[in-house]
């Protein structure tokens, strides 16, 4: 059975593409492009060398914004989870910031960082920072108390407790948080690139809107964003499958 596990999703995608084709062909005014036109659009981007340029630009911004968030949010979240008092002091403020969409920060980002990579990286950083902080914090809180008690009974110092008990215990939960945050970061890059950067897949979409009747390239941008998002998620899942990280799941 496992051999054909790729079959159902492929069939479903094929059905979607056919439905899309039929719907596009039946429009009264031919504005929304069909799948074939979009594929040709992607081909045109590839021939002009724009495909590689734009994908690189988007992935570059996500890499930096996301990694900066990982490097700061995870220690911060672990600290908050570990020190109850710090959490009680900071959590209300974090909960106020959390529901503010990264898009609402766009004007501030331009005023601070101007137009270019920095503003986009800042927005992606913001979008992934709070979810990562929350998941690191919750991961610490969800460690069964008995682990820590056992650790202290063995005479571990606080530092040893952190490295030998806390860190491995939170890792599996943290990975789920990392994966979700990467998804959010990739979603925000499009919006971030619609402000004043002149490259990237988000720029491709807004630039094609400006280019007149080039909705084939708009949809090509959407398809590329989806495809790369799938690749990123697959990459993160393969991390979860690493043996040394998998113990937390218990089963199989």
């Amino acid at each position, binding site marked *: 059975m496992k051999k054909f596990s790729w079959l159902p999703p492929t069939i479903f995608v094929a059905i979607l593409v056919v439905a899309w084709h039929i719907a596009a062909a039946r429009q009264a005014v031919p504005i929304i492009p069909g799948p074939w036109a979009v594929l040709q659009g992607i081909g045109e981007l590839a021939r002009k060398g724009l495909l590689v340029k734009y994908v690189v630009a988007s992935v570059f911004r996500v890499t930096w914004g996301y990694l900066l968030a990982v490097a700061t949010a995870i220690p911060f979240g672990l600290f908050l989870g570990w020190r109850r008092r710090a959490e009680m002091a900071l959590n209300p403020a974090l909960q106020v910031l959390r529901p503010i969409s990264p898009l609402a920060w766009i004007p501030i980002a331009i005023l601070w960082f101007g137009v270019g990579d920095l503003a986009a990286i800042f927005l992606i950083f913001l979008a992934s920072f709070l979810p990562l902080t929350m998941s690191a914090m919750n991961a610490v809180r969800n460690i069964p108390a008995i682990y820590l008690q056992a650790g202290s009974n063995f005479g571990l110092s606080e530092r040893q407790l952190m490295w030998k008990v806390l860190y491995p215990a939170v890792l599996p939960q943290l990975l789920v948080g990392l994966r979700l945050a990467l998804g959010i970061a990739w979603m925000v890059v499009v919006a971030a690139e*619609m402000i004043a950067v002149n490259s990237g897949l988000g720029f491709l979409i807004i630039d094609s809107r*400006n*280019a007149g009747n080039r909705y084939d390239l708009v949809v090509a941008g959407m398809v590329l964003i989806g495809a790369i998002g799938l690749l990123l998620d697959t990459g993160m899942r393969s991390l979860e499958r690493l043996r040394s990280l998998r113990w937390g799941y218990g089963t199989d």
Partner: protein
Amino acid sequence: MRPSRKILIGVVLWTGAISGLHFRLNVDWSALGNDYLAENLRKLHVAYIPVTCHLTCPVTDYISRRSQSGNIFLPRMFQGFPEIKEALISNKMQAGFMVAPMAIALRAQGVPIRIVYLGHRYGSAVVVRKDGPVQTFPDLRGRTIAVPSRFSDERLLVFRAMKHFAVKPEEIRMVEMAPPDVAGALAVGAIDAFSMGEPYPSQAEMGGYGKVLFLAREYWPDYISCVLVVRQDVIDQRPEVVQELVDGIARSGLWLEQGRPYREHAADFVGRFYYRQDPALLRWALTNPLDRVMYTPLSPFKQDFDTIRDLMIETGVLDRAIEFEEYVDTRFAEQARSQAAWSYEPGSPQ
């Protein structure tokens, strides 16, 4: 090797590789290096969006790069007016093209910018569906028309037409819409009409679903849509650089008015290298007919701006009668009058 170390090495290699590729493929090093030059050597960053009102900006850049003196400023394409406004406020851009009422409103709100020149004249139109129910302006009663911004002359143009036809403002529903979206919205019937700058009226005409109801000049002689603004600190400290910018724009305006071959050539290189629009679309907007958009005279005149200011106050987007001298600096335009068109032949090798 431990897996966590492997992951770390992987992340470092990945970040290095993607950054290297990005710096190679996408970063404009000359624009980036400019910010680290001594202040008197620095070139101005000039913001524009891909519309025909801002055409002189890429034309000046393209021709000056091919002249002996080299490029005058660093053009930067934006996607909308709010971002240009923010980049100007935070001094990331020192100059930029924007709709005239927005420049007036910003100055009235205390933002230190001045209008020094115009982008173009005419070049806006009200467009309706070709076979739709709206065939005359009064037919718009009870219907929806899209305008680019509350701070736009395209919106004020609709009010001028309303006065002419004795239509009351509350009888027509006006919505703000990003210019690139209006042609599509008209095609699928989401709006009944739009008042926009070129090339969006041309786009609807070329697509076969739109028809120009009237051009701006029919109800507004000497119509202006966009202006060139410069930050006050640049005007005070480096007037010679501002003069160079205005001179360049003036020369491009004169160059564009030399006839059809010049306009067709501009449509070709601006479409391909700057706006990334189909050159055929720009060619339509620039030559159909030739005076659809005009690039002379580009000097700001008091009476034109008084008209705009009064209409702004009347329609509730300006709260005080700011004086012409307060938001316009005419000396650069006056100096630029002695300029001649670029000596650059259309069809020169690219």
